[in-house]
């Protein structure tokens, strides 16, 4: 661990795969920019990889002041131990006050390993981050400008605010899609700092044999409108109604886990804790009861319309508009009203 260093930078781990940055990294750069401005410090991005220098300008355009570039052919494919070595080495050298990672499978593999090696705090899957003075209720000591790490816990039934008083850096993973992606500013200036980190062959414990990545077919994350169906849709045939409404409205098709598990639609459409997290301008939930796992993936939507026959369905608790009724009648009415709306 490092001692609190209130002049330390706010860092983002720049996760990349085959030379392209993960979306969440750019979302984090925007959030780090905001936190760093409140703290009056700079934003740093740590970019390990092989032939990834070209990504630095994108990080800078999204808010980084400094990009710590660690180029090594042995970092071409992610491996926990060498990547953790890179992070720990740079953290000890520059003593950042905050380090953020995407809560991706890779980030959730790497970040706890770094925290363990540093014996520092680590909070998983944050949905919000804020800066605030905090008084320790036990010692009454004032800790100025701490990072409030806010996350759902207990299956999404409570919201916990976690702090780390003195075993820094303050580190967190942040779920993809919960921080807004800010538009890049190509005229921002920043510097690229090349770092060398010793990667001993003995650190390369894993040997990659085969790899298969599905192209992202359904783009739920960038959709302005999502029409999602749940178990209440009833059958694969009736799921056509969901597609039809999405088509008329110009939106993407989403689904709850119940609909995916029942075979109505493919898993790539799943929204929720184990699927994709979305925050569209409009979310229409049809026949979705609204289990906490589903709500966790869509409750940040700007407007939510819930259609359900059960007036006690939990989905209504987060809806802005509620329609208690049969979706097989309601959706055709919506399609009709949309087609007839004045343009």
């Amino acid at each position, binding site marked *: 661990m490092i001692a609190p260093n209130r002049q330390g930078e706010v860092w983002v781990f720049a996760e990349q795969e085959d030379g392209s940055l993960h979306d969440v990294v750019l979302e984090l750069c925007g959030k780090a920019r905001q936190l760093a401005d409140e703290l009056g410090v700079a934003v740093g991005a740590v970019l390990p990889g092989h032939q990834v220098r070209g990504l630095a300008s994108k990080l800078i355009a999204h808010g980084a002041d400094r990009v710590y570039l660690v180029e090594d052919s042995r970092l071409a494919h992610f491996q926990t131990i060498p990547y953790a070595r890179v992070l720990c080495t740079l953290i000890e050298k520059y003593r950042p006050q905050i380090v953020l990672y995407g809560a991706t499978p890779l980030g959730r593999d790497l970040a706890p390993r770094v925290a363990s090696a540093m014996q520092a705090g680590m909070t998983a899957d944050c949905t919000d981050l804020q800066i605030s003075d905090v008084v320790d209720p036990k010692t009454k000591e004032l800790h100025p400008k701490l990072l409030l790490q806010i996350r759902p816990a207990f299956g999404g039934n409570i919201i916990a*605010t976690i702090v780390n008083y003195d075993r820094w850096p303050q580190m967190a993973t942040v779920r993809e899609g919960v921080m807004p992606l800010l538009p890049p500013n190509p005229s921002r200036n920043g510097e690229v700092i090349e770092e060398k980190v010793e990667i001993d062959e003995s650190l390369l414990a894993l040997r990659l044999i085969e790899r298969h990545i599905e192209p992202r077919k359904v783009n739920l994350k960038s959709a302005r409108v999502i029409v999602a169906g749940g178990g209440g849709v009833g059958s694969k045939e009736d799921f056509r109604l969901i597609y039809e409404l999405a088509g008329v409205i110009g939106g993407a098709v989403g689904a709850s886990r119940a609909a995916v598990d029942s075979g109505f639609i493919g898993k790539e459409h799943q929204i929720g804790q184990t699927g994709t997290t979305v925050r569209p301008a409009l979310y229409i939930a049809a026949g979705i009861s609204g289990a906490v796992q589903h709500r966790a993936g869509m409750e940040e939507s700007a407007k939510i319309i819930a259609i359900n026959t059960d007036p006690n369905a939990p989905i209504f608790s987060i809806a802005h508009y509620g329609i208690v009724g049969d979706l097989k009648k309601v959706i055709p009415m919506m399609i009709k009203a949309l087609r007839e709306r004045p343009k």
Partner: protein
Amino acid sequence: MPYDVVVCVKQVPDTANVTAEAMKEDGTVNRAALPAIFNPEDLNALEVALEIRDRWGGTVTVISMGPPKAAEVLRDSLYRGADRAILITDRRAAASDTLATSYILAQTIRTIGRYDIVLCGRQAIDGDTAQVGPQIAEKLGLPQVTYLEQLVDIVDGQARVRRNVGRGWEIVDVHLPALFTVISTANQPRPPAARRVMRFKRARIPAEIEAEVRASLGNASDEEVLDAIAKRTEELRRQGLLLEQWNLDDIHADLNRCGLPGSPTKVFRVQAIVLTKKGYTEIPPTEEGIRRLIHELVVDRTLG
């Protein structure tokens, strides 16, 4: 070549099934209404361990940290086929965050001494952090493979595993000893075996024996109680039904790294998510109602 496997498991409240019935009038969760269950992905980890023993021989040791009640998941592990089960229970371990928990479990595994493979569920459903597995691996100096969905093979101390990487999978080779965290799609955990349930349902940890003896003896003297506890303990030991209960001294733990002092992260505030029904505008399921809704969405520019 046989392999010795240690599986880390946790007893958790069943947060996955929080329904309207488990909500209180004020909209907060009624924790008492949630049953304590075997963390689902830890059952997948146990199944991987049992499959390793089925194919290559060796031993399966299950460890858990928690209050005495967590002995329930140890018994469940024995019902499903584990060879040995150890509960680490100690008040000084209370309020441990993932860093302190992983330290305690790593010390426990060190104390067990012999292991080729350490398995954990990817994450526990009460916290969903997925941190403890990688943090144990770091402390033991082991390579880790997270999100394991298939153990393909083990040849001469080298494992080939398939891991899920979100939008796909990769197959990697790793030399043992190593730690793997297992996801729910890896397998279908075997159910408890009736014969083993009959055999182990009376298995107890010392803390349970003490509680049961005290409850049954009511107002007996201390001496009688202690005598009865000793007798009962000896009886279970003879029958092979005394489950191991360790404390922090048994695993030579540095107390500064356990419980509250060992936990850098502190819960500063907790807010219940209040489910209210007041927040939304009710739209009648009629053509007129829906036409007005669409009109409103066009006016406020939600729809272009």
